[in-house]
């Protein structure tokens, strides 16, 4: 191995120094060697394009990818649960209904508002039979209330004066409360007759003196039931015929316990406040009417809207193969996000178009290139450039066909095509200073690339890719789906072997995504 070339004296000394030099042993060198021996670090034997420069996947990105899947899944699930199971009517007790047309109707349609106030007492109704009482007035609810308010005791009366109702317990004290409710509603209204005023005053005085305090136990109240009773309660004749609390008030000889026949009771949201300090007057008749109205509306048959398109967002993690041959050693986990639109063609089948973005890092392709950047007679100027490709941006547009595995199944097959636009994150830097060569002896240099083309940022990487998609989707609930699919790129994105790699670099990966539908197709 003797060279005919005789190095200079300086080069010979350089050679001698380098060959005779021994590096100092590093204490942790053997630990690294043991990892090789134990097999945790495999020696490169496969001949990858960049075998020793590919960084190991960063754990933070892996955790981020898996975290995105979990968080999006959890949020989407909670949101969908909230959407699917939220009660149809949600009305707090203390909140008045400002826009209910029914509730506002009484104030405007009452012909004799003050009479409505006095009509809260059945005694008053008996003594003033000529009073007109519109059915829809707020006063119409007050007699209803005296049947629905529960368990009010009257300590001043005989022990048997109180009565217990199986569904709706009421005593005279409740009537007093309802009177106050009605009075509240009727504030500012003028009485129609002096007779009514006198009767109302008498009854109010009696009730206030006899019932010093009212504590109403919480109890469900059927608003629909109350409304059903309006007509009957507003008729003075009915009060005489049926079990009337007014009679109990005026005559202590009434039976100790009176049972009101059970009526149709539909559970509603009209629960009285769960507090012993709450009086029944805090629930206004307007609220009760409104609740009843809403309940009736719920039971009405609603028209069914069946959309045949939907859209949503998708996110998840992907396992990217930097090259297909290097499956075992070059897999990176990275996140991806996207939006999609879905169109239902037939039952159980749909066509979906997506726009998805992902950034594939982990590449560390480097290439040193020399180009003729100038020529002057027989002197050429050569510049050396260093190209580096650490990552690529990928905008994918998968168009997939989804079909249920079997009818009414939550599992679906997925298949389709995936065009993609690729934008490399490449850097070009001048590797060394300019060099000049004299071509006086030979001018057969024929550079393959001109200076202008080296400034192309996309050099070495294909900008368009096409691939195939196949996978499986699972949709446990209507708005959420989990999807596992494989994407196989069909083109070698590292064209021209620019980075000195003969292996195919394909845009292939396995994706685990979570899809959330803002608007779903009807199954």
């Amino acid at each position: 191995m003797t060279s005919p070339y005789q190095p200079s004296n300086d080069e010979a000394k350089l050679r001698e120094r380098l060959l005779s030099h021994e590096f100092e042993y590093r204490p942790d060198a053997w630990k690294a060697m043991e990892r090789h021996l134990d097999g945790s670090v495999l020696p490169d034997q496969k001949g990858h394009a960049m075998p020793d420069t590919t960084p190991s996947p960063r754990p933070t990105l892996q955790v981020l990818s898996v975290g995105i899947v979990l968080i999006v899944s959890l949020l989407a699930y909670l949101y969908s649960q909230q959407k699917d199971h939220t009660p149809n009517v949600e009305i707090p007790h203390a909140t008045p209904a400002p826009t209910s047309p029914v509730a506002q109707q009484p104030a405007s349609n009452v012909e004799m508002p003050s009479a409505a106030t006095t009509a809260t007492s059945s005694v008053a109704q008996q003594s003033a039979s000529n009073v007109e009482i519109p059915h829809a007035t707020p006063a119409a609810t007050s007699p209803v209330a005296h049947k629905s308010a529960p368990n009010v005791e009257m300590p001043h009366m005989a022990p048997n004066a109180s009565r217990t109702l199986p569904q709706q317990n009421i005593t005279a004290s409740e009537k007093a409360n309802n009177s106050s409710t009605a009075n509240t509603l009727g504030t500012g209204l003028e009485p129609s007759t002096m007779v009514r005023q006198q009767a109302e005053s008498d009854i109010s005085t009696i009730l206030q003196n006899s019932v010093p305090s009212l504590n109403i136990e919480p109890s469900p109240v059927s608003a629909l039931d109350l409304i059903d009773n309006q007509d009957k309660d507003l008729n003075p004749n009915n009060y005489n015929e049926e079990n009337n609390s007014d009679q109990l008030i005026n005559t202590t000889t009434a039976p100790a316990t009176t049972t009101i026949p059970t009526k149709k009771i539909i559970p509603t949201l009209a629960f009285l406040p769960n507090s012993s300090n709450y009086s029944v007057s805090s629930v206004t008749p307007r609220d009760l009417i409104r609740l009843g109205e809403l309940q009736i509306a719920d039971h009405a048959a609603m028209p069914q809207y069946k959309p045949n398109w939907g859209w949503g967002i998708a996110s998840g993690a992907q396992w990217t193969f930097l090259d297909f041959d290097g499956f075992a050693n070059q897999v990176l986990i990275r996140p991806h996000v996207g939006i999609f639109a879905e169109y239902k063609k037939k039952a159980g089948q749909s066509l979906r178009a997506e726009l998805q973005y992902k950034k594939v890092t982990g590449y560390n392709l480097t290439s040193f290139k020399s180009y003729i950047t100038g020529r002057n007679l027989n002197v050429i100027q050569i510049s050396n450039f260093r190209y580096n490709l650490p990552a690529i941006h990928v905008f994918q547009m998968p168009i997939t066909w989804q079909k249920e595995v079997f009818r009414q199944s939550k599992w679906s097959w997925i298949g389709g095509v995936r065009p993609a636009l690729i934008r490399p994150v490449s850097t070009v830097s001048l590797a060394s200073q300019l060099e000049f060569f004299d071509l006086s002896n030979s001018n057969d240099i024929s550079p393959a690339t001109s200076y202008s083309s080296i400034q192309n940022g996309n050099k070495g990487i294909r900008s368009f890719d096409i691939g195939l998609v196949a996978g499986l989707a699972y949709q446990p609930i209507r708005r959420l789906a989990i999807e596992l699919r494989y994407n196989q790129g069909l083109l070698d994105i590292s064209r021209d072997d620019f980075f000195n790699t003969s292996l195919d670099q394909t845009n292939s990966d396995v994706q685990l995504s979570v899809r959330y539908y803002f608007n779903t197709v009807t199954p």
Partner: protein
Amino acid sequence: MAQPTSVSYQPNSSDEVLLSGCLAQHRLAQEYLYRRYYGRLMGIAMRYCNGRDEAEDILNTAFVKIFEAVGQYQGTGALGGWMARIVFNTTIDFVRKRASYRRLHDHNTPADQPIENPALQNLAIEELYELIQQVPAASRTVFNLYVIEGYKHHEIATMLGIDEGTSKWHLSKARGILQKLLKEREPNPSKIIAA
């Protein structure tokens, strides 16, 4: 051959004893052999790589091959030379995959201009490695093979899979870069006078 026990291996044990231990895949014998030849073999990888970590990784890969092929050593030559050959081949395999060579510029290179600079002798050994590592990988490889290892251009061309002219071009390029770097390190008399 009787398998030596662990107590028979010492840092100063002979190569034959350590080789027998390595043949039995005894970890202590492997460690002592590794420690003994680390400094000498590390220099081979360091001349072709960009840094110590990269060179050590190549060295460890080569040692895995050495421990696996220790039975093939027949004792005809020096053990160090045999191991150096494996490290060298491993290193060349590595740089051949990584470095990019100009294949299309097959032109006559200017006349070789060996490095003539007295500053080369004044540099510490660490500075020499640092200087060489500033040369692009392809040119550095050719320079090492030609100047340090003593190969001919046609041997280098065969070894790296390039043309002979390309090898010459890279040698010239490496020398040019080293000359410039050495000139930059020369003390500037005007600055000294000004100081």
